[in-house]
C-alpha cells in the first residue's frame, strides 16, 4: 500500500515563500546598484564586493560548524549582509579591512546573538561603524569614479598619490561655511542622481537604487512604510532648513539622493530583523531614522549619519515594539 503518511500540526499548506526567496529578491534588488558600482569603480568595486560576500559566507559557515548547527548558508542572509556591507564601504578600502568588517558583521553582530533573526543591530552597519572607528583614514578616502572628468572642481590630490574626490555630502557640509560651495554642491545633483560622484560603492547611483527599491516593493519583499517614513522625515527636515536659509543649506534633494539615504531607505532600514514588527512601529522607526540622519548630517560632526541613525534606531527597536504592542481584535481581555 502507501508509504507511511506524515503527521504534523495544522496548517498543512503554506504560501510559496521562503527566507531564501526573500533574501534572493533582495539580492536581485541590489543588482542594479552592483552594476552601477562596478561601472563607476571598475575592478576595485568587483573585488570589494566579492571579498565581502565570500568573507561573510565563510564566517557564517564557520560559526555554523562550531555551533554544530544546521548549515544556514543557503538562507542567503549572509550574502545580503555581505553585499550591503560592501556597498557601504569606500571603493579604495583594502581587502583585508573588508574581511575584518565581514567577520565582525557576521560573527560578532549576528552569530553571537543567535544567528539570523536574533541580531539586534544591523550587522553591516555595525561592521561599518567598527571599521570607521578603527580605520578612520581608510574609511574616508574617496576615489574618483572612473567615469569622472578629472577637471571637475572638487577633485584634489592630497599628500598621498590617490586621486580623491569629496563626496556630495562632504561638500554640503563644508558648504555651510560659504555660499559658493553650496551652489557647487547643488550643481552636483545631476551627477548624484546618475552616480557620477565619489562615495561608497553602492550609494552613488540613486537611479540604480530606486530601480532596486521599486523591485522590492513590487515583489512585496518590503512594504512601503519604512522607506516612506525615512524619506518623508528626512525630506521635511532638510526642506525646513533649506527654505529658512537656502544660502547656507543645500537642496533637500541633494540630501535625499546624496549619501546613503536611498540605500538606507530601501535596503537597510527595511532589514526586517532589526526593524519593528508592526506597521505603527515601522512608521516610528522610519521617521526616527530619517530625522536622526538629518540631525547628524546638519548638526553632528559627520557629513553622513545613516549608519549611526540606523544603529541607534536598531537599539530602540525593542522599545518601539513594546510601545506598539498590538491590541487583540476583541480588545484587551479583562482578566488575563
Amino acid at each position, binding site marked *: 500500500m502507501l508509504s507511511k503518511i506524515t503527521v504534523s500540526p495544522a496548517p498543512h499548506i503554506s504560501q510559496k515563500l521562503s527566507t531564501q526567496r526573500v533574501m534572493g529578491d533582495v539580492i536581485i534588488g541590489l543588482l542594479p546598484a552592483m552594476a552601477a558600482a562596478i561601472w563607476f569603480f571598475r575592478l576595485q568595486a568587483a573585488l570589494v564586493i566579492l571579498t565581502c560576500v565570500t568573507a561573510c559566507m565563510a564566517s557564517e559557515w564557520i560559526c555554523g560548524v562550531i555551533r554544530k548547527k544546521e548549515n544556514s548558508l543557503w538562507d542567503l542572509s549572509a550574502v545580503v549582509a555581505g553585499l550591503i556591507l560592501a556597498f557601504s564601504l569606500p571603493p579604495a578600502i583594502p581587502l583585508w579591512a573588508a574581511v575584518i568588517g565581514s567577520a565582525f558583521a557576521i560573527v560578532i553582530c549576528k552569530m553571537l546573538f543567535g544567528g539570523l533573526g536574533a541580531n539586534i543591530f544591523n550587522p553591516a552597519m555595525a561592521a561599518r561603524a567598527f571599521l570607521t572607528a*578603527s580605520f*578612520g*583614514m581608510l574609511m*574616508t578616502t574617496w576615489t574618483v569614479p572612473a567615469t569622472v572628468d578629472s577637471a571637475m572642481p572638487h577633485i*584634489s590630490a*592630497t*599628500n598621498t598619490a590617490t586621486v580623491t574626490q569629496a563626496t556630495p555630502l562632504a561638500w554640503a557640509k*563644508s558648504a555651510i561655511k560659504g555660499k559658493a560651495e553650496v551652489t557647487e554642491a547643488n550643481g552636483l545633483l545631476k551627477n548624484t542622481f546618475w552616480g557620477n560622484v565619489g562615495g561608497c560603492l553602492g550609494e552613488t547611483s540613486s537611479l540604480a537604487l530606486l530601480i532596486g527599491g521599486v523591485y522590492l516593493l513590487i515583489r512585496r519583499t518590503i512594504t512601503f512604510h519604512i522607506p516612506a517614513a525615512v524619506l518623508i522625515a528626512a525630506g521635511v527636515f532638510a526642506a525646513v532648513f533649506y527654505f529658512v536659509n537656502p544660502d547656507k543649506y543645500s537642496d533637500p534633494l541633494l540630501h535625499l539622493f546624496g549619501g546613503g539615504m536611498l540605500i538606507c531607505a530601501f535596503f537597510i532600514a527595511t532589514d526586517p530583523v532589526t526593524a519593528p514588527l508592526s506597521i505603527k512601529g515601522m512608521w516610528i522607526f522610519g521617521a526616527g531614522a530619517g530625522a536622526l540622519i538629518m540631525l547628524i548630517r546638519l548638526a553632528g*560632526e559627520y557629513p553622513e549619519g545613516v549608519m549611526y541613525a540606523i544603529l541607534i534606531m536598531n537599539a530602540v527597536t525593542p522599545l518601539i515594539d513594546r510601545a506598539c504592542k498590538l491590541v487583540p481584535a476583541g480588545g484587551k481581555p479583562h482578566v488575563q
Partner: protein
Amino acid sequence: MSNNETKNPILFFMQESWLLLVSAILFGCLLACLSAAWQPKIIQNEIDKFNALAGGLLSEAKGFQNAGESISVDIGKGKTYSVRVKKGTDAAGNLVGWAFVCEGSGFADKIKLVVATDAAFEKLAGFGVLSSNETPGFGDKITIKDGFYQSQFKGAPVTELELTKVGDAETIDSRIVAISGATVTSEAVVKTFNTFLLPIKEAMAEQGLL
C-alpha cells in the same frame, strides 16, 4: 539597649560610635600628614611638566617665572579662563620667550595646551599638550611631538590662524592644515589659539610686559 536609649542618649551614642569617631580622627590625621608630606611633590610635578613642555618648545629657556598679573580671557558662553603667563629665561636670566597654559573643547573633552611664543610675542614657538582625551588614532595625533600637525605652529605668526583641509603643511604661515579624519580636534586647537593669543598679547602690552 532600649534602656540606654532613654536614659542617656549621649552615652549611648558614644558607646555605639566611639570606634567610628576615633578612626575618623586617626584617618583624618593620617591623610593630612600624608598630604602635607606629598603636596609639595605634587605641585612640583605640575611645574615640572609645564617646564618640560615649555622647555621643549623654547629650547634656550632654562627656567620659567610668573610674569605680571593673571589675565582673564573670555572663552565664550559667558565664561572666562584665567591665564598666568610665564617668562622663559636662559641661564643668564635673559628673556627668551613666553609660555602659558590655555584650554579649549576638543572632540571628546577639554584639551589643555602649553603655548610658547618668542620674546616679542610675534611668532609662535609651538604648543605642547598638557592633557587631552581625544580619540586614539584620530584626535590624539595632536599630541605627537614634532608630528606634522605640531610642527606647523613652530614659527607661525601670532595672528588669527586659519584651518584648511587641503594644503601644504610644509610652509609655515597662518594656514594650518587639519589632520585628516580629525578636523574637529585640529579646529579646536586652532580655535584655542585664536581665543587666547591676541587677548593675551593685548593684556601683556597693557601690563607693560611687551
